[in-house]
Structures are given as structure tokens and as C-alpha cells.
């Protein structure tokens, strides 16, 4: 279970998160919605451990482990996966090599045997077929020359391969057409189960038609101002963020 307690953080000395508290029990999918600049992406980076985001108060634990004390790769090994809003391009790094190295690093941490090239290819191909990804994406540089949709699918492929316990999807729906959106949602839904939870960060309700959340939280000015069931997202869609922003 992800447990965030009164978490505050600054970027370049500017307070972005101002005391967030949130619990995502295993097996549940929670959505975080909020207007631009409310701190949604900051929350995901703080949880994943990016440099330049300074935690100034509170805590975040994952299955009892202190997330904030761990290196980014340690968090990944513990089962946390961040689907980036803007997946980073790695020219010269082959996608297959990247995926296999990541997978084996995590397997090694879990005490599972590493996969050799052939075993890996078999697994990867199967996952890619499920995501309607052409196989030549394995040969290309990581995210290099990928379209926006391809990049997001590559993120979902990585999630499918790495089998995280907690996935944070940071505006994964931005820039996706409806077909790609369905593919991404199917990828997430396929992971659903008692050992998988997810934090779906989004600006729009649209994605939540396909990934139906257990709970929805509204983030404004670095605080959660409202929580509830899927109906909260529908209300926001109808009334916009203005009403909750006033409340904040």
C-alpha cells in the first residue's frame, strides 16, 4: 500500500506540494485530477525520486518502506513504476537492450533469475503484440523518433514487462487519440489485480472512462481538496475546476 502523509515539497525554493495525504491500498486504482500547476507532476516526480524536488515535510511509504529514503532505482525495484508524461529520448540506446537491462535489474532485486536475450525477446514480443506495437520498435533507440502515441505505448510496454506493484501514470493520456487511449487503458486494466495498484494522474475525465478508478482525488494548489468515488470526475467534467479552485 502507498501511504502519503502530509507531504510537502519545493522546486527551486517554490512550494508546490503543501501537505498531501493519501492512501492507495493494494489492488485499487486511484485517480488524481487537478488543474494545470496544481502539483500533479511534482507529486509523481517526488514519489519516483527525481533530483531537484526537495521534500520539506511529511512522509511517503510503500508497503512499509520509506520511499523518500531510496534511490530512484531502489524505488523501481520495490515495484514503483512511473509512466512519464514526456518519455525521455535516449539516442544510441537500443530499446531492446534498455528493456532487458531494466527487467533484469529488477528481477535480480526480486531474487528472480535474469533472462537471456532469447527468453527476453520471447516475452517482449508477446507483450508488444498485445499492444499492437511493431517489432522494429525494439531495434530503435529508446523513444527516438517515436510519435507521441508510440512513446506512450512504449511506456505501457515497459510497465507490462516490469510488472510493477504500483504504477503512477503521469498524464499518460495527453496527446493520445482514442485508439491509442484504449490500448493504454487495456494495458493498465490487464495489470489489475490484488497485487497491483495505480495512481492515474490526469487533467481530463476521458481516460477514466476506460480505466475506472476506485477513488478520485482533486488536487489544487498542492493540496487534496476533495476525494470521492468515480462520480467526482464526472462532476469536474461538468462544472470544471473553477468550483474546486474557489473552495481551495
Amino acid at each position, binding site marked *: 500500500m502507498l501511504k502519503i502523509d502530509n507531504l510537502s515539497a519545493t522546486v527551486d525554493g517554490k512550494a508546490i506540494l503543501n501537505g498531501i495525504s493519501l492512501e492507495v491500498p493494494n489492488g485499487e486504482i486511484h485517480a488524481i485530477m487537478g488543474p494545470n500547476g496544481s502539483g500533479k507532476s511534482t507529486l509523481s516526480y517526488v514519489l*519516483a*525520486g*527525481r*533530483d531537484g524536488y526537495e521534500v520539506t515535510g511529511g512522509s511517503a511509504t510503500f508497503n512499509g518502506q520509506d520511499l523518500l529514503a531510496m*534511490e*530512484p*532505482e531502489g*524505488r*523501481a*525495484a520495490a515495484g514503483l*513504476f*512511473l509512466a*512519464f508524461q514526456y*518519455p*525521455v529520448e*535516449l*539516442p*544510441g*540506446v537500443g530499446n531492446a*537492450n*534498455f528493456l532487458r*537491462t*531494466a527487467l533484469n*535489474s*529488477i528481477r535480480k*532485486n526480486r531474487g528472480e533469475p535474469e533472462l537471456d536475450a532469447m527468453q527476453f525477446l520471447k516475452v517482449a514480443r508477446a507483450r508488444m503484440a498485445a499492444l499492437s506495437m511493431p517489432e522494429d520498435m525494439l531495434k530503435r*533507440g529508446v523513444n527516438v523518433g517515436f510519435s507521441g502515441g508510440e512513446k506512450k505505448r512504449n511506456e505501457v510496454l*515497459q510497465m507490462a514487462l*516490469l510488472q510493477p506493484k504500483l504504477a503512477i501514470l503521469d498524464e499518460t493520456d495527453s496527446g493520445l487519440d482514442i485508439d491509442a487511449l484504449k490500448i493504454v487503458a487495456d494495458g493498465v486494466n490487464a495489470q489489475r489485480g490484488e497485487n497491483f495498484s495505480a495512481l492515474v494522474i490526469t487533467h481530463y475525465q476521458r481516460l477514466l472512462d476506460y480505466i475506472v478508478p476506485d477513488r478520485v482525488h482533486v488536487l489544487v494548489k498542492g493540496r487534496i481538496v476533495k476525494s470521492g468515488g468515480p462520480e467526482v470526475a464526472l462532476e469536474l467534467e461538468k462544472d470544471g475546476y473553477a468550483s474546486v479552485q474557489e473552495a481551495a
Partner: protein
Amino acid sequence: MNAVSGAARFSHRFEGLRERLPGARLPWLTALRDGAAATFATLGFPTRRAEAWKYTDLAPIGDAGFDEPLTLLEGSVALPPAGAARAVFVDGRFRADLATLDGLAFSARSLAGALDEVEGPLGALAQPARDAMAALNTMLFEDGLLIDVQDGVDGGVLELLSVATASERPQAFHPRHLIRLGRGASLTIIETAMGTAGAAYLHNPVFEIGLEEDARLTHGRLQQESRAGFHLSTIYARVAGGAVYDNFTLNAGARLVRNEIHVALTGPKGACHMNGAQLIGDGQHADTATVLDHAAPDCASRQTYKTVLAGRARGVFQGRIHVHQAAQRTDGYQMNQALLLSEDAEMDSKPQLEIYADDVKCSHGATVGALDADQMFYLRARGIPEPAAKAMLVEAFLIEAVEQLPEGLLRERLTDAIAGWWQGQEAAA
């Protein structure tokens, strides 16, 4: 002690060795050596006041007090496994007993044994009068490899291995290699320079390479000298119409290395590729200097150099493209990039264009920077530990240069050398 007095030491050695050097009975060669000695005595080692040596100080060579080996070494030497026909030099001397040159489709032999055949070609390209390092080599060379590939012959792959052994007194050797490829001939040379760990020596090879029409030479160079060694190499290549000179140099060893490559494209539709990687760590200094003369129309040149610096390392890249007035429709490209892995590293680059023809397409680029923080985070967020993530990004940085080589023995050797360097860095860290 400064470099000048170090130079005087070499001049003095020449005085003593003059009568005993190979070919001393050949008047033309003696005249050539005397001329070179006079030049070297005047020029001395280049100092940093010389524009071409602005970033590299040769004073440590003068300080080291090198001697040329006098005794012929015949002891056993540990050699890496050969992947093809191989010529072996130990401390600058050709070792027939270690060579595997039988059944070649072309001629490859010791220069010392064939000096009476090279009047004219020897010194035709390397001009001692202008170049102190060529002068030093010309006055003191004892041996080298003489390669002649006849018209139309595909010579396959030849390895050229230079091994330096440890000796009580630091040794200097100045091999001179002459390579000629006839019309339409082709050859791949994989040159490896290495030395016993910890051995201090000066390896100062000069290459004179002549490619006739439509010939093609792939010249791979893996410089993995001892970390106490000095490597100063100078290549002069003349490329005739339609011919291709393809040079790839890896600088991973030596305390101080300077690779100077002069290529002249003298006939239409010739091409030159000069690529390389410099991987240097604490206490190392690596300088690559290329001079590309586009002297004929419709030639193309491509250069991609990558330097990775760790610890207190200093990297230098100087690349000059000179397009003569006759060289219309020249297509020249040069890219040099450096990756700083340490707070103490320094990279100096000086790409240079000199253009005297108007219908040309020439460009160069240079970047220096650290590993990209976003890329590092992305890899680590996927569970890849920091050292492995670093290694991946370094490999990715180098790949653009490595990919210029075709698949095959050379590329394998290079990939291994890069991996070996990285492991060495990690072990040191």
C-alpha cells in the same frame, strides 16, 4: 628540464647511432636522415606556442630521457590471440618469428630489410622539413612495415601489432610504415599498440599511405598503450581519385597520446572517413589532430570523434578542413563531441574550416557537456542502477562513432576495447 633540452638528447642519440642505423650505407637515406636531424635540431619538440600544439605539452617526453633500444630482443613475448594474418613489432622491431604473413595476396614485410627499394616513396609524404615529429621519426627510424597491394587485389584483413616491453631504461622507438595500394586494391589493417603494464616508453610511428585510383583502405587503430607510455603517431595519406581512406582510431591507453592525421584528397570523387573515440581517465592526456586537404573536386569527407573523460583527464580535438580553390562540390562534415564524467576533466576543441572554393557544403559541430540528468533519471526510474545507467549512456554516446565501422573483426575488437576501458574505470572508481 624543458622540451628543448629533451630534444637535444634525441639529436645527440642520432649522432651516436648515425653509422649504425639501418640503411646507413645508402647515400640517399643518410642524406634524408641528416636533413631531418638538422630540422629537428632547429625545431626541437613543438612547444605550446605553436598553434598546432596549443593544448599539448611534450615536455614530459623531454624529461623522461628516452633511449633507442640497441639490442635485438628475441625473448618470448605474450601476445593476444590473432584474428587474421599478423605482423608483429616488439619495441619497434619487426619480429619475423612472431609474424603470420604467409600466403597473403599481397606483399607485407620488414622495411629495414627492403630499404634499397624505397628511395622516393620514403619521405614522399611525411615532410621532415615542416614537421618536427616526422623529422624525429625520419632521423631515428629502425624498422617498420612495408605493404604493397597490387592493382585490383583484395588484401583482406591484416593485423599490425606493436608491443612494448618493460625495460630498465625508458625506450623510444620510431617505426616507419609505408603502405601502398594499387588501383582498385583494397585492404583492412587492424593496428593495435600495447605495452607491458607500467612500462614507460615512447612509441612514435609515422605512416606514409598512398592510395591509387579507386583503392580502399580501412585503417583501424586501437591505441591501448601502457598507462605510463607515450604515443605520438603521425599519418600522412594521399588519396587518389575514387579512392577511399577510412580511419578509425581508439585512444584508450598511454599517459600522453597525440594522433595526427593528414589526409590529402588529390583526385576527383575520393573520400575520407576519419572517426574515433578517445576514452581517457585520471592522469591521461589525449590529443587528436586531423588535417584534411580537399585538393580535388567532388570529394567527400566525414569525421565523427567522441571523447569520454573521467578523473583528471584532458582531451583535445583539433580538426582542420582545408578546401582548395579547385575542390568544387566538396562535401565535408565533421562532428566532435565530448562527455565530461568528472569535475576535474578538461576538454579543448578546435574545429576549423578553411574554404577557398564556393560550391561547397561544409559543416562542423562541437559539443561538450555532462551526462544528461533527465536520461539518467529515466533509466534509474526503470530500475537500472546508477553505474549501469552511466555505462549505457556512455556506450550510447560512443555508438555514433562505432557504427561508422562495418561489422567484422575490427568492430569486435573495438567494442571489446571500449568495454575493457569502462570496466577499468569502474574498478578504479
